[in-house]
């Protein structure tokens, strides 16, 4: 199976995702240029973090106009796995593949640090190696990760168990002190109803290598590999 990491002008975490999949997990992985229009031979798509198009206009807004995004949308519609990390999550929201929107962090500052997130749903192709309720330590690095959705959308996300991660304390407790950016209902990541498209603000690719001192992020990539292997069988 082959992973495709989409490269937009301004993508910064493309190499980090590539490196984890290639070097740590020994997977096939290719960069997909934003001006391409086809995803032939790609089994899972990663929209990496960064500042696509400088994050001008709104974060993630201009990337949705890139030629490749038509192919990404139909890939998602056919049930292909799409993981949006940080700027990738913002792009998925702007495209409407996931509900809601991002606004600036309540502190108005960019924040880079480790946070704790709780697995809210382990029955997704991205979290099947985790337990629901498990707490991961994982880095965030963003200025606009304050997730917003109206009450009806939040109710529907909850009803369909689409909230995959919430910010918590190291003990898994919810609270404003452990919510780094002001997100509605402490949401750190959500999936679509079909469970094949996920967006998350934290960076699993930054904590998937023993040399960097934290391997919690490996669980997500390992889950994806398991899910893809199961599909291929």
């Amino acid at each position, binding site marked *: 199976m082959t992973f495709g990491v989409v490269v937009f*002008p301004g993508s*910064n975490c493309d190499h*980090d995702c590539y490196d*984890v999949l290639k070097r740590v997990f020994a997977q096939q992985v290719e960069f997909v240029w934003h*001006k391409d229009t086809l995803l032939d031979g790609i089994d899972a798509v990663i929209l990496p973090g960064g*500042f696509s198009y400088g994050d001008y206009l709104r974060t993630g807004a201009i990337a949705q106009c890139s030629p490749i995004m038509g192919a990404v949308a139909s890939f998602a519609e056919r049930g292909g796995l799409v993981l949006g990390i940080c700027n990738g999550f913002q792009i998925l929201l702007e495209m409407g593949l996931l509900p809601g929107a991002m606004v600036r962090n309540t502190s108005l500052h*960019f924040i*880079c*640090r480790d946070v704790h997130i709780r697995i809210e749903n382990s029955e997704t192709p991205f979290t099947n190696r985790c337990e629901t309720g498990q707490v991961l330590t994982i880095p965030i690095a963003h200025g606009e990760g304050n997730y917003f959705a109206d009450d009806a959308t939040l109710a529907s996300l909850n009803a369909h168990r689409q909230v995959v991660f919430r910010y918590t304390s190291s003990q898994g407790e919810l609270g404003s002190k452990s919510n780094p950016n002001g997100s509605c209902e402490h949401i750190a990541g959500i999936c679509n109803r079909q469970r094949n498209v996920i967006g998350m603000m934290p960076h699993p690719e*930054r904590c998937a290598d023993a040399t960097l001192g934290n391997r919690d992020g490996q669980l997500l990539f390992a889950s994806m590999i398991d899910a893809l292997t199961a599909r291929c069988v």
Partner: protein
Amino acid sequence: MAQGTLTAREGYRIRELLGREPNELELGMFSVMWSEHCSYKTSKPYLKRLPTRGPHVLQEPGENAGAVDIGNGLAAVFKMESHNHPSFIEPFQGAATGVGGILRDIFTMGARPIALLDSLRFGSPDDKKNQHIIDGVVAGISAYGNCVGVPTVGGATIFNEIYERNPLVNVFCLGIARHSHLMRSQAAGVGNQVIYIGAKTGRDGIHGATMASDSFDDESISQRPTVQVGDPFIEKLLMEASLELVKRRLLVGIQDMGAAGLTGASCEMASGAGTGIELDVEMVPRRERGMTPYEVMLSESQERMLLVVKPDCAGDVLDICTKWDLDAAVIGKVTDDGMLRICKADTVVAEMRACALTDEAPSEKRKSAPPQFQDTLQGLNDELIPLPHDCNSVLLELLGSPNLSNKAWIYEQYDFMVRTNTVIRPGSDSAVLRIKDTSTALAITVDGNPLYCLLNPYVGGVIAVAEAARNLVCSGAKPLGLTDALNFGNPERPEILWQFELVIEGISDACKFFDVPVVSGNVSFYNETNGIAVYPSPMIGMVGLIDPVERAMSQWFKDDGHVVFLLGETHDEIGGSEYVRVIHHREQGVPPRLSLETEGALHTCLLLAIEGGLVCSAHDCAEGGLAIALAESCLSRPQGPIGASITITPDFFDIRVDALLFGETQSRAIVTAESANVSELESLARDVGVPIRKIGTVGGQHLRVKSSDLRLSWIDIDVDVMYDAWMRKK
């Protein structure tokens, strides 16, 4: 008019070089190239005293950045540069474009930038006007560095009232290149094409370089229009395109358009190769209509590069620029006559020998003399400093003081993890980055204590280098090379030049002793407002190699039961300390002395101990002294604070108690070891001649420092209370 900063003597010299009267454009080009900022006319003879060669050096000063060999066919390319004046006028854009400029210096060398560090000097953070500058500078570095995707992994911030009207913003950048990909900024090959790539040229920042060669007065605020605006998105595209061009070997030469814009880039490339360049300003991509040749040649618009390319490669070069959505245009060619010739279509609008603008810039010999106040500064009578009654409250006050408190409020605004190389994050003695696909890592630190440099410029220069090396060694790294950014007042005043001369001498002697060459650097003079100069502020950015990466060492205490050692002797020294400054409100005294031999032995000891796996933590004992070093070792642990019990034997406290706890004696470090390794560590230290003293154990909820007979207890504080004081925001 532009020639305002040229002296009559320089004007005469220009007429002599041209053999005629210069026109307005030529005068503007000379004026900017002969400014202190571009020509180093005052500093050059002094800089020649610095050692620049060594077995690891691949590129000495003279190119956009220096380079050292780090093994595996790779080079570390690095430089530090100041952007002080623009950051005072417009903090956000000034700092942002400072980051942009230093990044371009690195990737024009063919190296991919992998780390930024910033060395900042501000006025008191409690003052509203300073807050505006501090917030703007930090936000500017954050916005630019984060967007470009290069991690800001460390830095040093010092607050002092002296920087109120002259904040210093120095940014260090390091990149990695294959040896065979290292580029030069030379316009070699007659007939080759000169290609412009990047952002379009606008009217911004005309005469930024001359502005940086002038002191401030109250009028300067109205200079706002000359500050450039940065576009990190274009920079990112420019970086990726440049690195792709280098990788595909399509370039003969490449140069950033920084200070002095197109003028600087073209004359430097031509004179570097001994060739000439002919340019047509009409071909330059422009942002505004009706720009004159003067404006095009002297604009300091950001995110632009000049390439020299063989004619048969030009098509591929333009294709790569199109791929990255960058403007690109052939604007001229390399000639054999040594002339820089500027044309507007068919008309020559300026013409001079390229090296007349660069190598032949006149140097300026100025007077140097110690300031009259120097004796008063050093004359601190220690006996007038009362001994502290309550060391707990002194420690808490120091921990919460701007210079010693935790800087997470700054570095958490920077993405310090992108590119997934950051092994040791900001908040330890140095940042450590692994080099992927090798077993190695690099440690990087920036240092410089301006108060020491004020009190004794020579000693301040020595300590700046020694402390940087000590920080690297504490992280398990062997120093390879350094870059210096030298920030001073107006060199036309003899006392400023005296400070400059002595600081350089100090840096030079220390570099020679440690065998760490200076491979790049930057001088920023005229950091003064209304006649008040900043303290002499050299910033040393030093790079060291760790092999293997697993040897990377952090400063914090790891676990209960580990034994705490102090390496090095402690003297009765309080002059120039943060303790005297913060608690007794004096910036006076003789700064700590430093013996290079003693310092060198400490480095040997630390490297051998880390190499032998004998220590679990190592922390430089610096500003704030032993007590602050202990507190930092307790508080900076990522899993949360941990306490320690320290006991001091009587032979150790025959000095003033404040010197013992808060004095800043050099050449010391705190290390911890598992009990099984204690005797081996002690004998290692003895073998290399470093005094070693077992002073306690890690563990508990308190940091306690008491005498070994238990009669005296100086410090006993809950680590959570210390943590709250230390985390004071700003």
